[in-house]
């Protein structure tokens, strides 16, 4: 299935950022899994993975399941997952599914990164 989701990964001190765009639905499985593996592939791997949804315009129930799978894997690897850039609607969905109990939410990437990465010396 062709995915309407794209992901770009970059590594910061102590955290890796996965910038998602497009649609997070069932077709995004490979994109999201590959992005996560790239994000944590550094040695040592990041303690925190940031999911940036600022350029995402659609998340459905299957996409929620993919996010749950990423969160489960990160927790098994003792990594923290945070999210940023969610629209008010998808922030509400993170609340009612209780994802926001396990994933700290930030309004945007700048505020997420400023909380997660150590200040420059």
């Amino acid at each position: 299935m062709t995915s309407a989701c794209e992901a770009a990964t970059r590594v910061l001190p102590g955290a890796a950022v996965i910038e998602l765009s497009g649609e997070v639905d069932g077709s995004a499985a490979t994109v999201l899994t590959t992005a996560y593996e790239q994000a944590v592939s550094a040695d040592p791997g990041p303690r925190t993975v940031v999911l940036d949804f600022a350029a995402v315009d659609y998340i459905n129930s299957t996409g929620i399941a993919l996010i749950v799978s990423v969160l489960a894997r990160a927790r098994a690897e003792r990594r923290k997952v945070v999210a940023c850039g969610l629209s008010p609607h998808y922030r509400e969905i993170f609340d009612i599914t209780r994802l926001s109990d396990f994933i700290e939410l930030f309004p945007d990437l700048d505020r997420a990164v400023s909380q997660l990465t150590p200040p420059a010396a």
Partner: protein
Amino acid sequence: MTQMARSTPRRLDAFTLASEPGNERLALARVAGTVRGLGLSQARLERLKTAVAEATMNAIEHGNGNRPEIPVEVEVTQNGEEIVVAISDQGGENNTGFGQGEGTRDGQGEGIRDGRGDGAGNHEEPDLARKLDGEQSPRGWGLFLIRNMVDAMHVTTDGQRHTIWLTMRTGGAAHDERM
């Protein structure tokens, strides 16, 4: 001057979609265009869009088995302050396990078949902690989302015709303005 009785349902739109994955996006866009301007806040419009997409996806996948030649039917009506979206497939009640029933935003009720329950019409409530512990499948959010997005939902079956009815009130439903 003649006034319309408020209880007379008014059809706003009716259309069909081929049962192909992804066509739920067409349904949500068209329904959103139909009901825009009828008094739903932006937040409630977004909720209705999500519910329509999830119900249509269910109809495509589990009702009509992703067979494009079997259409999903969508009808939008207004009855007073209620907007009702009816989404029908041809899965019947003997498909992958569902019954008829109702659900509301308070989390009560069952009735939609989404192929993610126990196959006998009993849909296990998603529990994120259990999912993270591997005790539940990561999936199974469709019905949960629908119930939490709209003011009311219910399901009917007439022979092979299976319909989910989504109701959203346009006025005075501030109880769920949570944003």
